[in-house]
């Protein structure tokens, strides 16, 4: 359904994101080509005069939020650390292009021979920023090229849209709230910018947007999923490491993912009840 919609509107941003996803899928190993293309997207997105109000305001009439129960899956055994998801998210959601504001990010865990603790970094690591050439580009450096790696994997991170979100609990005005379909949102016209929610999130999923002077975080691209589309990061992932769907739909991809893998969640002891389900992480991932 999402594919049809986006193809009908090839000039729109969403259409472009969809095309981009396909492009990425075909050029997964040729990351430099995709990178150049993505820069093009960013440029188009920023220069297009017809750019609609963003994020699109107002409810979607045909969408019934009592009929869905969204959830997210991350298959770390598939992630190749290409960081297309990070870049797509920044473009799609107007996240400031700097190395400390992210709605989603990717962590790399590398175990070296003779060591029992992993070396961990993300795209924000200075070595990786240097490798990318600028804080506006994202790539993992080949810093372990000459090391003896015994185990390594990537872990995409994002808001866990918890069952009992501590961020919602601590908001003094109720600007951040949980929708009936299981998504935690922020009303940026209501947020007073106290940053208590940033403190309360154990996953570091929230950041303070200096431009809007309000808190921001992943919404699972609520403006897209309520229209039947997938979140931008899921759309562009070339290896299907990110899975999104409706728990209410037994045949959805997310239900299939949960059924067919031994999944875990991050920091379960917090009692938050995260709704991002992981496959293939070890206990060092927090």
């Amino acid at each position: 359904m999402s594919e049809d919609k986006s193809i009908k509107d090839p000039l729109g941003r969403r259409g472009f994101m969809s095309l981009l996803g396909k492009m990425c899928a075909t050029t997964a190993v040729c990351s430099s080509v995709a990178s150049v293309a993505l820069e093009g997207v960013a440029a188009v997105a920023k220069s297009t005069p017809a750019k609609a109000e963003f994020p699109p305001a107002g409810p979607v009439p045909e969408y019934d939020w009592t009929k869905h129960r969204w959830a997210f899956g991350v298959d770390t055994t598939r992630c190749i650390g290409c960081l297309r998801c990070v870049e797509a998210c920044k473009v799609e959601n107007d996240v400031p292009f700097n190395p400390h504001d992210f709605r989603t990010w990717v962590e790399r865990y590398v175990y070296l021979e003779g060591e029992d603790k992993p070396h961990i970094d993300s795209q924000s690591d200075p070595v990786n920023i240097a490798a990318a050439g600028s804080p506006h580009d994202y790539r993992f450096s080949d810093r372990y090229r000459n090391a003896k790696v015994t185990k390594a994997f990537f872990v995409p991170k994002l808001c866990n849209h918890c069952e009992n979100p501590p961020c919602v609990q601590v908001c003094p005005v109720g600007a951040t709230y949980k929708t009936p379909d299981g998504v935690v949102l922020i009303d940026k016209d209501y947020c007073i910018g106290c940053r208590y929610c940033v403190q309360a999130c154990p996953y570091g999923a929230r950041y303070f947007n200096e431009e809007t002077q309000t808190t921001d975080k992943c919404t699972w691209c609520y403006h897209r999923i309520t229209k039947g589309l997938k979140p931008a990061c899921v759309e562009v992932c070339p290896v299907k490491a990110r899975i999104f769907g409706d728990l209410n739909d037994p045949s959805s991809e997310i239900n299939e993912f949960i059924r067919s893998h031994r999944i875990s969640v991050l920091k379960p002891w917090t009692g938050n009840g995260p709704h991002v389900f992981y496959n293939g992480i070890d206990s060092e991932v927090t």
Partner: protein
Amino acid sequence: MHTFMHVAPFIASPFRGYVYPNETVLPWGVLIVVYPYITGLVAGAFIVSSLYHTFRIERFKPVARLALLSALAFLSFAPAALLSHLGHPERSFEAIWTAHWTSAFAAFAYVAGFYAILLILEIWFAFRVDIVAMAQTARGSMGLLYRLMTLGSYDVSERALAYDRKWTKVLAAVGIAAAAGLHGYVGFVFGSLKAREWWSSDLMPIIFILSAVVSGVAVLVLIYVVSSKVRKAAIDESCMTGLAQVLWGFLIVTMLVEALEYVEMLYRRIEGIGMIEQLIAGPIRIGLAIQVLCSLIPFLIVTVLLARNVRGRALIGWMSISSVLLMSAVLAMRWNVVIGGQELSKTAKGLLTFTPPLWGREGVVWASTLLGGSFVFLWVLARLLPPWEPAQMSE
């Protein structure tokens, strides 16, 4: 492991180990250090005034009304620190009209508002005789102001004064609970967050209340000494010894509970303890050294002062030094909690090092201005309502 200084459009803190990307900009800076500090001064100063107004401990009479004005001056500036921290201060009233009750922050306006009303009422009762006297003598706009402040009540008969005293006593008693509530709530803001290992503790509200009293009594000692010197008025030694006793008692319990907090955290050897140890040995080591030394040294000084029943200039001099040290210790404690908690990454695998900016809304200059502003406001209040007892009037 490596250290790196970001070159970023706004302040990102250097880190080592692994920290979440969004953590490199600390959500709370020096303003949130100053906010609980000023609130603490309110609580401490108020409790001294209640020792006289409620418990009728006569030796505190010379500072009782000064303490009330000090509490009001500090209470007036505590919200300023919070407000200037907000991204949208113009929306702050939403926290009152549409308060989200599961949030500890939502209670602030109500707790502080209740306390402010109570404090202003108590000040009115405690100063009513003076207000009436000044309304009858002052001319011009000041006369009008005092006449307005009488609220039309010019009755200073013995019966009316007894009524005033009764109300002052009740308000001061309720105020002790309100002061403890106001500051205990500030401790809860930090202690209730499970996301931060450094904050998440049941002892946090208790530590905040106890240290608040210490800093509040210390600041009152300084205000009393400085104002007396400026006015060339005598300092009541019995009052000063009384303040030393209060300070000594609260200091012992504060140091014990704070030590307990650290010992428990280290003894439990929870996951990530290695990083906690590195935090103590690293980013907050100076703050921690100030907190410990500036608590222990005044404790020893005050112990000697009380044990040897020191009087005169020596008592006043050493009490002033102790007070300056204790105020530094409590400020350092606020820093160690607020900033230290954020320097310890939520990953439990990394540390950040925060250096506050000098200028700007979150800068040291603005935070100091707010702190200094409360003292200026106290000066204005003391001009408007001289809190000095007749015996203390300058020659």
